[in-house]
């Protein structure tokens, strides 16, 4: 038996689905700006080479300096190892001398003190990340930018190289760089 051509029941189903569908609940999973920025932050270790081929720590320490814009997103991402690395989230109110971070996210709440923070990070082996506009030009390593509806990355290679850090070629191809 060949399948019948089911236009009749398809039409009936469409008629049933239309009003029901149009009244369906507004549950949906949109990707917010900070969800995507959090994922990019979490994936950064894949695209950073540490000095002398050193193996990164496990767990890797992600610090957030200032007001946390991610809500609980970072903790949720940290529940599962990424590429065999676990992550630890540390919230910081200020930069101390004994700061122990692999990746330091500087919140927009710290815009006013950005240049001071960047100066304090000199000589510390960590990747500085922020979405403060102009962060990379000011000497930060990784700036998360928003252009239209897309999140991008601006890199300052010289700032990274001063700490012996290199970015992966794939990231360099996709990111913009500050010379």
């Amino acid at each position: 038996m060949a399948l019948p051509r089911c236009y009749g029941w398809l039409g009936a189903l469409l008629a049933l689905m239309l009003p029901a569908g149009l009244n369906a609940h507004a549950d949906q999973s949109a990707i917010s700006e900070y969800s995507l920025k959090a994922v990019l932050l979490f994936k950064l270790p894949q695209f950073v080479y540490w000095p002398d081929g050193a193996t990164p720590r496990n767990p890797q320490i992600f610090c957030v300096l200032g007001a946390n814009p991610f809500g609980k997103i970072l903790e949720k991402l940290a529940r599962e190892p990424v590429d065999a690395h676990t992550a630890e989230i540390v919230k910081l109110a200020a930069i101390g001398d004994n700061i122990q971070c692999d990746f330091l996210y500087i919140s927009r709440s710290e815009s006013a003190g950005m240049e001071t923070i960047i100066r304090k990070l000199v000589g510390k082996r960590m990747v500085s990340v922020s979405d403060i506009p102009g962060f990379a030009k000011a000497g930060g390593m990784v700036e998360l930018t928003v252009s239209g509806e897309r999140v991008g990355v601006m890199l300052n290679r010289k700032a990274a190289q001063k700490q012996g850090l290199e970015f992966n070629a794939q990231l360099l191809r996709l990111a913009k760089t500050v010379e």
Partner: protein
Amino acid sequence: MSGYAKNYAAIFLLSLAGCWSTAHGADDGDVQSLLPLSLDELFATKVVTASRHQENRTDSPAHIVVFTREQIRERRYKNLADLLEDLPGVDIQRGTRSSVYNNFTFQGHVNNNKMLIMLNGVRIDHPVGGKIPVAENFALYNAKQVEVLYGSAAALYGADAAAGVINIITDHAADAEGAWVSAGGGSFGETEASLLAGVKLNDWMALTVGGHKQSSDRARLDQYYLKDFPKVDAKTFSGSVAVPSVARENYTGGTAGDSLYARLDAGDDLTLGYYRNYFRSLTSTGDRPDTTLYLDNARWDTAIETMYGTLRFNLTPNLKGELVVDYSGYEVDPASKYLNIYTDFQDNGYVYDKAWRRGVEQNFNWRVNDANTVLAGVGYKDYYALITPDLPKPYNTSLSPDAQGLAYPNTTLPIPVFEAHYSNTSAYFQLQSEWNKAVSTMIGARYDQHSAYGASVNPRLGMVWHNAPDSHIKLLYGEAFRAPAPEDGFSTFGTFGGAKNSNGLYLGNNFRSPNFDLKPETSRNLSAAWDWRPRSNLNFIANAYYSEVDNLIVTSSEAVPTQYIPGALLSQSTIKVNAGKEMHQGIDLILNWRNQFGNAWSSDTWGGYSYETGHIKESQNALTLAQSYIPEQKLKLGNTFRYRDRYTITPKLYLIGATTTERNDKTQPGERLKTPGYALMNLHFGAHKLADRNLSAYLDIYNLFDRRYYVAAGSSSTTFVNMPQPPRSAMLTLEYRF
């Protein structure tokens, strides 16, 4: 329960078998689903506000495979044929066809005219739906991403989207600043060069241009497969020796291809694109030495070019529009010709084909509310095609078809040149509804009104069930049609010996008659997929499918020959008719596994196991035959090992089971002759950041262990049943980024 109903039931049960856990869908923690995405994909992800909808691969009811730019580079998919070869459910028989060179079978659908090839959503394959070469001409130097959608998609795309849709996506020109150039050479005279350059013209406008050129002498197969290429007499069907064995030529099988690409973007609203590709292969491809002459000038040259413009606009924040205008042209070089047993080995087998399509389509995307999205559109396209039979000399493109003044050799009968001009009007609608966090549905249909073969309605119905945060069940039903291409109806051939009957009519045997009344092939496809990601670096997909095709266009002997040549009496003729029916079913099991070893080493492992069966009946009373060109089982495995971003090693292994040919097994009614299975390994090396850090080098080794193997062929009585394949070859390519 009938056989077909059982098949559908089995697929449905299979889909339910994966649903072991209580349904619960994505919550705020769904951000974890972004972790497996590549950097390319993350940068391409639109950031949306709470009122807008973001769909990713797991939200689509269709089974979709996506290849990113990095995968394309590391796995050395230099062209679309390379990429398709790695796809689960796809079979490729390279170098087996005289006019399309490679043969493809896509989940049982034979030939590449049952799937669409698109560039940024605009169709770039044959403008009127004919078969085209998919080989080195479709180079992927410009690809940012390639998406392969499995199953019927005619409800969105219209004619010919029966087996699937391949969409090559390129960068927005503003994102492609800079330039790179590559050049390579290798065994058997293989050379290839490509370049891509992007420039911002001003703050608003950017341009990308690129191109590639490839040529290869290919291996002298007669030196590697002595038994398959004996020096024999080239004899005509009547038995006269055209070329004696002592004067036979050596085998030759060279190919060449090139392409041009340009994309101009004005902001995010306007895109203008141009794409052209060209491919040349020999018309002796796939033919046995007793039935053809292996000569470099007996070739088939095709060019396809497409121009398009896309204007995007927002009518309201929730209603987006997209206006697409396109033109596509196809032409076979008039110097293309056959020189084989069908032309009595005489230089009178020239062929000329030309076709174009132009169209306009208005698409809308309406976000009705947070749970419902409507896609809708209307379109109009018109088409033109011209096809000649074999000609005694090249078609003169500066003259009209009626003024060619060509007669069949050995007669005074004028050769008919067939032209067709027709149009199609279409409208489609699709509603995607998210019922709750776990369940979403899709329902849609497309109406096409064709000036030649009338109306066609093709529905599509799908459901996605996120039965767990890491598990997604998809069901999809779709109907589709393949519009009869002019080459199906109008492609005629045959030669006269010069004899006449008592009424003065030239006598002709074994002619192919035209059929102006062919109807579309119709197909129905049901698929169920389970997409499971137990860990962020591990993805398992099972995709089961079942397809039926009715009104299949097949070649049939004519009981009463069509007398389409005035002044001739034709006998024992064949014709293409809508008489066949086929079904195929199978399952693809797909694995993707990413690993990191310390800070320096990482790997991507992928694999696909496919099980597939299919049958065809060429007429109601004909014997049911096994479907051609499919192995029952095949396994494709690959792994990219990476050391930092300096070195990559990618071995690829293909274990292909015995494959059905198109030739019947006379000892077992209903069975086909089968080509023995084979194991093949390719190996690819990449070294990057060389010289001043902008240079990459690639070494590609094909058929690493230098195996002698065959692929299935047998499309006619004069071709190989088992086509010998090339020995080991290697190629070195350098790529420099400015």
